[in-house]
C-alpha cells in the first residue's frame, strides 16, 4: 500500500453547492471532498444522486459546458474551477466518458488516440511514437487501423483510455465505465484501470453505481453520494459494514448479502471488500448451516404451452454471406421469462428482428401458437409480438405521454372511446396512469422506458421482446422494472429479455438461452448456465460471486447454493 496521507491534495472541494440553470434546486449541496495525488477513489450513488455532476465539476464540464450557479470553492489540480477553462483542466484531468461510441471521434483507433496530441499541435513523428506506446499500454496495438464500427464496446473504451494516457494528465476520471460493457469486458476494464493505477503515479477516480464489479480490484476509498450530499467517505471495508450503501439503494456484492443471510454481523476486520481477501474463518460453519436450512426448491411447474417456437432458423445478411444465425431452435412458453445472452455480434438482436419480421429468415420457420409467421407483415406480427428497444429515445415520437401510448391504436383506426379505455388500462398496469397528461420531456429515463413498454403493450401482444430493459438504471429502478415485468408474466404474457445483466438473468429469468457465433450453445436454468465456465467464457459473462463463495466455503453442491441464495434474495426484495 502506498503512503497516501502525506501526498498533496489534487482535488479540494469545500462546502460546494451547484445548481444547473434549468433546475429548480441544487444538484450538489455542501460537498466537501479532498482527493490526494495517487489515490484511487470510487464515487457511488443511485441515479440522480448527483455523482455525474460531481464528475463534471472535476473535469470542468460544469460550469463551462453545462451552465449553472456555484457556491463554495473547488480547486482542481491547483486551479479554481470557475476560472480555469475546460481546456486548461483537460491538461491535468483526463476523462473517459460513459458512452464509448459517442466519444470516439476519430475515423480509426490511431487517430482517436492521437486526437489530443493533434489539438496540441504535435509533429506527426512524435504523435506516431506516442500513439503506438499508448496503444500498447491498453492492448490495442494490433488494431490501430480499425474503424470504430469494427470494434466492441470494450475496445472502444480502451481506445479512449489510450487517448487520455497519451496526454500528461495526472488524474484519470472514469464516468460510469461499466455502463455499456458486457460483464467480461467490464471485468477487464477494471483490471486495466487497476494496472495503470499501479504502474503510474496517476490519481484514479471512478464514478459508478455497480459496486461489486468495481470492487473486483481494490480501491482506497469509497465516497457515497445521496441526494446531492456526501453521506459517507470511508474505506470499502468500513463502508460495507456500515449498511449505508444498502440504505442508499446501492447493491452490495452478492457474496456479502449471502453472508448476511447466514446471520452474523460483519466487521471490517474480515476484509469484506474483496472475495479474494475475505477472512471466512469461523464463517464456514454458519454458511453450511444456512445452506441446509433453506429448503430445496420445489420442482419446476408443469411444462407451459408453447407460444413462440423457432425451428432451425438460419439467417445471413447477404446471399452466400457469413451466416449470422445457424439453425437456431428455441421455445418460449406462455407466461415464461426467458433471457437471451451472448457476446456482441452473437446474433441476439438479429434474432429478435427476425421474430418481428424486419428481416426474413434464410432457412427454418418461426411459429406463433403453432402457426407459421412467414406470410405475416411487420404490422400484423406486432399485434402478437411486441419489441421494445434499448434506447427509449429511439421509440418516442410524440410530445405527450397519452398520445405516445395511443399512437399504435390510432394508426390502426380504432375508435376514440376504445382507444381511451385501452390506453388507460395499459397506463394503470404500467403505473403511469397518474402521469397520463404529462409531457414526455418531464419523465425520467426509467419512466420513459416504461412509456415505451406501455406503447407496445397497448397493442396487446402475447409476447414481449425487450432489449436490455435495465441498461443505465440503478438497483432500485432495476428492481422496479423487473418486478413490473414479472407481474406481466403472471398475466400470461411471455417475455424475452436480451441482456448482458447477470443479476437479471440469475434473479428473474426462468431460462437463459446462450448464443455464440449464431448458435445456441446452452439453454437452461440460469444458475446452471452461469456456473459453467465454458459457457460463461463463450458468452462473455462472469461467474457469480455467490458461486465462488460457495466454493470457498466448501459447500458440496455450489450450484444448489446459488439457487437457494437467489430464492431467498427474491423473497427479501419482493417483500
Amino acid at each position, binding site marked *: 500500500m502506498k503512503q497516501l496521507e502525506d501526498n498533496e491534495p489534487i482535488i479540494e472541494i469545500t462546502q460546494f453547492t451547484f445548481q444547473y440553470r434549468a433546475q429548480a434546486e441544487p444538484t450538489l449541496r455542501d460537498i466537501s471532498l479532498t482527493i490526494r495525488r495517487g489515490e484511487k477513489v470510487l464515487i457511488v450513488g443511485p441515479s440522480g444522486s448527483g455523482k455525474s455532476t460531481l464528475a463534471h465539476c472535476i473535469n470542468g*464540464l460544469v460550469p463551462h*459546458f453545462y451552465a449553472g450557479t456555484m457556491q463554495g470553492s473547488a480547486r482542481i489540480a491547483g486551479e479554481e474551477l470557475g476560472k480555469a477553462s475546460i481546456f486548461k483542466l483537460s491538461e491535468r484531468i483526463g476523462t473517459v*466518458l460513459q458512452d464509448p461510441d459517442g466519444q*470516439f*471521434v*476519430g*475515423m480509426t483507433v490511431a487517430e482517436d488516440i492521437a*486526437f489530443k496530441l493533434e*489539438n496540441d499541435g504535435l509533429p506527426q513523428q512524435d504523435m506516431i511514437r506516442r500513439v503506438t506506446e499508448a496503444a500498447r499500454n491498453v492492448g490495442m496495438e494490433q488494431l490501430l487501423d480499425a474503424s470504430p464500427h469494427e470494434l466492441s464496446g470494450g475496445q472502444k473504451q480502451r481506445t479512449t483510455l489510450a487517448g487520455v494516457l497519451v496526454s500528461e494528465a495526472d488524474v484519470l476520471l472514469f464516468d460510469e465505465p461499466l455502463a455499456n460493457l458486457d460483464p467480461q469486458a467490464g471485468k477487464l476494464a477494471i483490471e486495466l484501470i487497476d494496472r495503470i493505477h499501479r504502474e503510474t503515479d496517476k490519481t484514479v477516480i471512478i464514478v459508478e453505481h455497480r459496486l461489486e464489479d468495481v470492487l473486483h480490484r481494490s480501491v482506497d476509498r469509497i465516497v457515497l453520494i445521496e441526494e446531492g450530499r456526501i453521506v459517507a467517505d470511508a474505506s470499502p471495508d468500513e463502508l460495507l459494514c456500515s449498511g449505508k450503501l444498502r440504505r442508499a439503494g446501492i447493491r452490495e456484492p452478492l457474496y456479502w448479502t449471502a453472508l448476511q443471510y447466514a446471520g452474523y454481523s460483519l466487521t471490517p476486520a474480515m476484509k469484506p471488500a474483496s472475495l479474494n481477501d475475505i477472512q471466512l474463518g469461523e464463517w464456514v460453519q454458519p454458511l453450511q448451516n444456512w445452506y441446509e436450512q433453506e429448503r430445496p426448491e420445489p420442482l419446476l411447474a408443469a411444462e407451459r404451452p408453447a407460444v413462440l417456437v423457432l425451428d432451425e432458423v438460419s439467417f445471413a445478411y447477404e446471399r452466400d454471406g457469413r451466416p449470422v444465425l445457424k439453425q437456431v431452435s428455441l421455445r418460449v412458453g406462455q407466461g415464461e421469462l426467458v433471457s437471451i445472452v451472448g457476446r456482441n455480434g452473437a446474433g441476439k438482436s438479429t434474432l429478435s428482428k427476425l421474430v418481428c419480421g424486419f428481416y426474413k429468415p434464410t432457412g427454418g420457420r418461426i411459429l406463433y401458437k403453432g402457426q407459421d409467421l412467414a406470410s405475416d407483415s411487420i404490422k400484423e406480427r406486432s399485434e402478437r409480438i411486441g419489441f421494445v428497444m434499448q434506447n427509449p429515445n429511439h*421509440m418516442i415520437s410524440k410530445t405527450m405521454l397519452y398520445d405516445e401510448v395511443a399512437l399504435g391504436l390510432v394508426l390502426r383506426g380504432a375508435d376514440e372511446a376504445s382507444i381511451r379505455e385501452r390506453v388507460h388500462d395499459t397506463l394503470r398496469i404500467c403505473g403511469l396512469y397518474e402521469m397520463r397528461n404529462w409531457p414526455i420531456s418531464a419523465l425520467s429515463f426509467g419512466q420513459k422506458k416504461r412509456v415505451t413498454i406501455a406503447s407496445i403493450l397497448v397493442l396487446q401482444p402475447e409476447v414481449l421482446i425487450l432489449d436490455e430493459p435495465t441498461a443505465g438504471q440503478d438497483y432500485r429502478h432495476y428492481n422496479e422494472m423487473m418486478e413490473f415485468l414479472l407481474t406481466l408474466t403472471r398475466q400470461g404474457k411471455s417475455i424475452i429479455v436480451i441482456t448482458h445483466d447477470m443479476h437479471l438473468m440469475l434473479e428473474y429469468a426462468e431460462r437463459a438461452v446462450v448464443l455464440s457465433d449464431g448458435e445456441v450453445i446452452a439453454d437452461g436454468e440460469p444458475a446452471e448456465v452461469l456456473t459453467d465456465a465454458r459457457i460463461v467464457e463463450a458468452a462473455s459473462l462472469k461467474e457469480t460471486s455467490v458461486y465462488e463463495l460457495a466454493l470457498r466455503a466448501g459447500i458440496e453442491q455450489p450450484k444448489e447454493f446459488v439457487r437457494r441464495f437467489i430464492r431467498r434474495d427474491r423473497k427479501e426484495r419482493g417483500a
Partner: protein
Amino acid sequence: MKARMLTYTRQNSPVHRLTGAAKLIFFAAWSVTAMITYDTRSLLAMLLFSLVVFRLSKVRFRDYSFVLYLILFFFALNHLAIFLFSPLEGVSIYGTRHDLFPIAGRYVVTEEQLFYQFNIALKYVTVIPMALLFILTTDPAEFAASLNRVGVSYRIAYAVSIAMRYIPDIQRDYENIAFSAQARGIDISRKERLTRRVRNVIGILMPLILTSVQRIETVSAAMELRGFGQRRKRTWYNGCPFTARDYMAVALIAAIVIGSAWLTFRDGTRFYNPFR
C-alpha cells in the same frame, strides 16, 4: 454490417495512393472545366481520360451501383426537363435549324437540340466517374487534413470529418427507429397514401433528430475535454505530405484545364459548332 454504400475502402491503386488534397484539387478543377466547356472534342477527350483512370482505380461496381442508378435517374429527368422547358435551345445556340420530326405544338425535335443535349450528357458522364472516384478512394481520416491543407479552417475541416464518422451510426439509428415505428403501424412503404406517408416519415424523423442532437452534445463535450479548438493550428495524425505523384497529378489537371480552355475559347464561343 451491410449498407456500406459509397464509402471508402482501403485498396492499393495509383488513385488511392494520391493524397486527399491532390485528389480534391484535381476533382474541383476537373468539374469546373467540364461545366464550363461545351466543346465536344474536349469533353470526349476528358471522358476517355476519366474512364481510363476509373479503370486504374480498381473500385468495385457494387460499391457505387446504387448511387450510379440514382444519378442516371436524375440524369434522365434532367434531360426531359430541358426538352420540356426549352425545346429549341439548341437552335438558338447554334444559329441553324434542321428539323427531324415534330411532336406537338412547339415541340419539334431538331438536330441542334439533340446535339446540345448530347453535350450536356457528355458533361455528366465526364464528371460522374471523377466524383465517384473522389468519394470512393479518399480516406475520410485523411480528408480533413487535406481540406485543412488547401486552406480550409481546421474547425470546418474537422466538422466534415466528424460528420463522415457518424454517418454509419446515424444510419443505424434510423434503421432501428424505422423498424420500431413500422412495428407500431407507422407505414412508410408505398402501400400508404402519399400524404400519410410524408406524415409518417416525419414521425420517424423526430426521434432521429432528438437522438442525433444528443449524440452531438456527447461528441462536442468529448472533443472539448480533449482540447479541440483551443489553438489556432492543429496537426494531423493522418496528414500525408505531397509526393512527386501528387505534383504530377496537379500538373496534369493544370494541363487539362489549359488545353480544354484553349480548345473551347479559341473561336470565341463555348460551343463547338458542327452545323456551320
